[in-house]
């Protein structure tokens, strides 16, 4: 392909992307834009930050204990003389990485369960949905706390615990989409022509559930960050000296009087991350579902558990 054809193809692609109704709606939605900017900034910080910071996040400098914020240490130092700003930057990688991983695992379990329940139906569906009901009968964080605690405090177990208790909403959304899509005429037609189940799922069901699932995941992300940081705060996730935001807050609380920056720096970082994902989630929801204008009401349930 010649260079000019490539260029024009690229231009056409960009044109199409930029004028796609969903993208347009996203760009016009202030909360989506704000959330997108915050989330992108944090992602860049998490990826690039550790290469830029002048200090090591875990090496102790006992001669520099609990120094107030200064030019050399913009967010002060902690009880072991480590630069708090550096630790917050490394923490972005850890905290956001955990949250992302948990969300992806939740989504995967939920999509698989939802597809199976919706598509197989019968007693399989009935059994799976009862499991969902039972899991929803516990406040997520309490169940995750018990699971993580019993498996033993570690990062892997934290991810496992949060994923195992939190896939239910995805399963419900996917299942109801499957049930709805299955009844549509074009799917019936496709089945009549001899398309396999898997083909029907791939061609017709998955594209239809992708939107709601992505919105749900984005709305979920903020809650996952809060839950992961909360469990780490309780001592069940990342262990010191790991620069995880919740863990940092937990150790910083012993110095509330003389060094409040030890809790405020990670606290602010968490708020920033959660706020960004919530804004992005709200924006995505509004952009993908224009009928639901006022609609905090329905998706609000998805937050905070």
């Amino acid at each position, binding site marked *: 392909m010649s260079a000019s054809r490539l260029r024009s193809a690229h231009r056409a692609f960009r044109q199409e992307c930029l004028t796609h109704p969903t993208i347009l709606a996203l760009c016009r939605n202030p909360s989506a834009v704000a959330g997108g900017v915050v989330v992108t900034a944090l992602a860049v910080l998490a990826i690039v930050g550790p290469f830029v910071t002048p200090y090591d996040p875990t090496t102790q400098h006992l001669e520099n204990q609990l120094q107030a914020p200064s030019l050399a240490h913009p967010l002060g130092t902690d009880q072991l003389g480590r630069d708090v700003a550096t630790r917050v930057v490394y923490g972005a990688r850890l905290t956001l990485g955990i949250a992302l991983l948990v969300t992806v695992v939740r989504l995967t379990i939920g999509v698989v369960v939802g597809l199976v329940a919706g598509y197989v139906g019968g007693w399989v569906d009935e059994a799976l949905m009862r499991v969902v009901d*039972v899991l929803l009968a516990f406040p997520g964080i309490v*169940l995750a706390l018990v699971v993580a605690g019993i498996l033993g405090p570690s990062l892997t177990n934290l991810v496992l615990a949060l994923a195992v208790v939190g896939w239910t909403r995805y399963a419900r959304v996917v299942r109801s989409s499957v049930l709805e899509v299955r009844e549509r005429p074009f799917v019936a037609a496709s089945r009549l022509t001899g398309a396999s189940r898997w083909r029907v799922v791939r061609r017709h069901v998955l594209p239809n559930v992708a939107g709601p699932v992505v919105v749900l995941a984005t709305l979920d992300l903020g809650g996952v960050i809060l839950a992961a*940081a909360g469990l780490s705060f309780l001592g069940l996730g990342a262990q010191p000296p790991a620069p995880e935001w919740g863990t940092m807050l937990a150790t910083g609380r012993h110095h509330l009087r003389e060094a409040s920056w030890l809790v405020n720096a990670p606290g602010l970082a968490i708020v920033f991350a959660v706020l960004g994902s919530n804004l992005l989630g709200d924006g995505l929801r509004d952009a993908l579902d224009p009928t639901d204008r006022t609609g905090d009401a329905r998706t609000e349930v998805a937050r905070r558990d």
Partner: protein
Amino acid sequence: MQYLLRRFGSSAVVLFGVTMITYGLVHLTPGDPARTVLAERQGQQPSEADVQAFRAEEGLDEPLPLQYLHWIGDVLQGDLGRSYYGDGAVLDLLIAYLPNTIELAGASILVAVAVAIPAGVVSAVYRGTWIDYVSQVIALLGVSMPNFWLGYLLIIGGALRLGIFPVYGAGTVAHLVLPAVTLGTGMAAVLTRLVRSSLLETLEEPYVDAARARGLPERALVVAHALRTAMLPVVTMIGLQLGYVLGGAVVVEVVFQRPGLGMLLVDAVFARDFPVIQGVTLLVGTCFVIVNLGTDLAYQRLDPRVSLAGGGT
């Protein structure tokens, strides 16, 4: 009637599942619970005879389904077992710690409702003005705030700097203020958004338009006509949020060192005190199932359409 029966039936199924999860969970533990607990208790590796005796005493030597049946039989008779660490019967522990958690949950729901209804109504009535934006931004911040950090902010401000409130502990109303505000904030934020959107939706309803056409002033319209209908989803949400309140209470109790169910659970998790973990989990799960049932029934009373539909979820 049929709806009622079905609703009770599904609650019973869920409750059964709750007991299975509660019992099954502690068996996820890597290693032998008898050894872990005895090692903890005696401060050294326990002897084989001790391990055998402990297993027999706690019924850990039976096959799992049989253990579960024994356990559920005991539970139905009000016997939740004894703490591994000699703190007495689990039921007594629950009874001792529960009031502090109920107090905290009730107070924080009160805080949330007292903030959210006025804020949501004002936001909806002045939709699109700066008042609305300010209230929405605050609500968004509230949703995004980790309650452990908020707790420490309040401790730094209200207790250490101003010295108005006691920092840690429980017992008096002063002890309750900071934890209740901490726990209530997130819920207040969620409810504010819900009251706003629900009221906005209701204000578009034909019957409200009809009232408007009769010449009713906007204020009377909101108060006398729209608010009652708009409260329906809010009632449901308060019920749903109870799970969040109980979950949040765990963290808030640890922050403020309040001896409640949350602190009991966290201590038991770290000590691997299985009977206590099971007791708290079972209590929380059961409460949640009952509250959900109650919420559904209340909703049905408030909204006659639900019963006409016959089914519903």
